[in-house]
């Protein structure tokens, strides 16, 4: 009986596929490998650096840079979940090992800077227009201030305010 079992196992192993896997790993969708930042979308709001439990991310508004210390990052996905612009994403490949604690710094792209400046300029213009309209309304007597110009810039102004606050 033992011999029959033994032969069965041997024959099975001869015809079956290898049990080992290829060295090149196939990552399932959703693996938390490393953090990537699309600098065309990033507005440097700094929410990621606040939410990071290990303080691995630093955002410099004056230099317009976003930097991460990969050795401190624990791939918890907190920054990605909290990114308002969805510029952060999780790359599949695991972080590369290294011998030095490096800081990876990315500069905000020209496109993103231009877009943000345009946004801020538009918001400022609208705020100025709203202020002018309010002043005009006050000058014109006690007529109620028009609600529309005040409400319209609320959303973009909020966004720029957030950026200034961080």
């Amino acid at each position, binding site marked *: 009986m033992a011999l029959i079992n033994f032969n069965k196992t041997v024959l099975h192993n001869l015809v079956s596929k290898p049990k080992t896997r290829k060295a090149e790993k196939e990552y399932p969708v959703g693996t*938390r490998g490393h953090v990537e930042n699309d600098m065309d979308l990033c507005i440097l709001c700094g929410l990621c650096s606040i939410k990071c439990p290990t303080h691995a991310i630093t955002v410099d508004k004056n230099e317009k840079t976003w930097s991460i210390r990969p050795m401190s990052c*624990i791939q918890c996905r907190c920054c990605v979940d909290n990114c308002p612009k969805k510029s952060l994403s999780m790359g599949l490949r695991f972080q590369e090992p290294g011998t030095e604690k490096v800081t990876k710094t990315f500069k905000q792209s020209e496109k993103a800077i231009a877009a943000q400046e345009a946004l801020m300029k538009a918001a400022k213009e609208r705020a100025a227009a709203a202020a002018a309209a309010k002043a005009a309304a006050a000058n014109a007597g006690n007529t109620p201030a028009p609600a529309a110009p005040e409400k319209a810039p609320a959303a973009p102004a909020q966004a720029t305010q957030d950026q200034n606050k961080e």
Partner: protein
Amino acid sequence: MSTRSVIPFGPQHPVLPEPIHLDLVMEDEKVVEAIPSIGFIHRGLEKLVDKKDFNEMVYVAERICGICSLGHGLGYSEAVEHIMDIDVPSRAKYLRTIWSELSRVHSHLLWLGLLADAFGFESLYMECWRLREEALDMFEASTGGRVIFSVMKVGGIRRDVSDEMLKDFYQRINKMEEQLNTIAKPFLNDMAVQTRLRGVGVLTAEQADALGCAGPFLRASGIARDIRSTGYCAYGDVDFEPIISTEGDSYARTECRIKEIFQAFDIIRQCIDKMPAGDIDVPVKGMPNGEYVMRIEQPRGEAIYYVKANGSKFIDRMRVRTPTFANLSGLVETLKGCDLADVPILVLTIDPCISCTER
């Protein structure tokens, strides 16, 4: 009367993945007394509550240990949720249960592999770890991590699992069960394996109870004490009986753990069948204030989480009592009177996790 000698065992030893030191007082080939000493990998994680707020502390709790990481995150989150009176959505509870059982599967398979390696059955060891890889793959697909999962949070879980993936899990678990049937045979029936395990390190039910042992180590002595019966998470909704064995030797512990893997498969299938739809988390408002003791059943046994909060962002005190610490006294008792050659196997049969013990 022969002279006594002391043989140091550990902190570095082939069967020990983690450092623990035992001073074995020998009389010829017999162990008369074993004096354990721990403290080689203390990291002071509990003290980090001063620096990390109660939400960030989940990540620290998960890093207490690499094998029971999900359970530590779960125990801590549940303790804080009880303090804050948060009612976790039932879908989150079911997913927590599935992941807890999956972590039991991978922990027990790891242990079976280590045991096979300890008694010199290398191909069996490889088979166990290959099967464990399936469990890790399921973790990676559903949580995004293989060892540290980062899915627990205070108030629920951080990632939902789609119904297609759950169906896929069902298939994968059935396949794993078939493979485990093949692997379990040599552990339970092979004569050479039985000579290494049968009657080695017997711990009676009275001793196990008096020494406060926990987990499969306790249940192998015939005491049906399983914290899952208290019904935390979704364990109240699933059918299961604590698995016990009466002999109390190393073979009984192996048998207990193998049966627990099959039981874990069964619980996962029940959870997938009953999986409710809905939210996976609730918003957390305010700060925790009060204290709570949470008990959960880790793969290695009962773990206790004590959390004391003072109404601020930072928790006052967090303390973990891990199953290995409870089992060390039982280990010392089983070592008395055994052969020197059996010491590695006996140290393994409590499934020591020293990182948990020392934190």
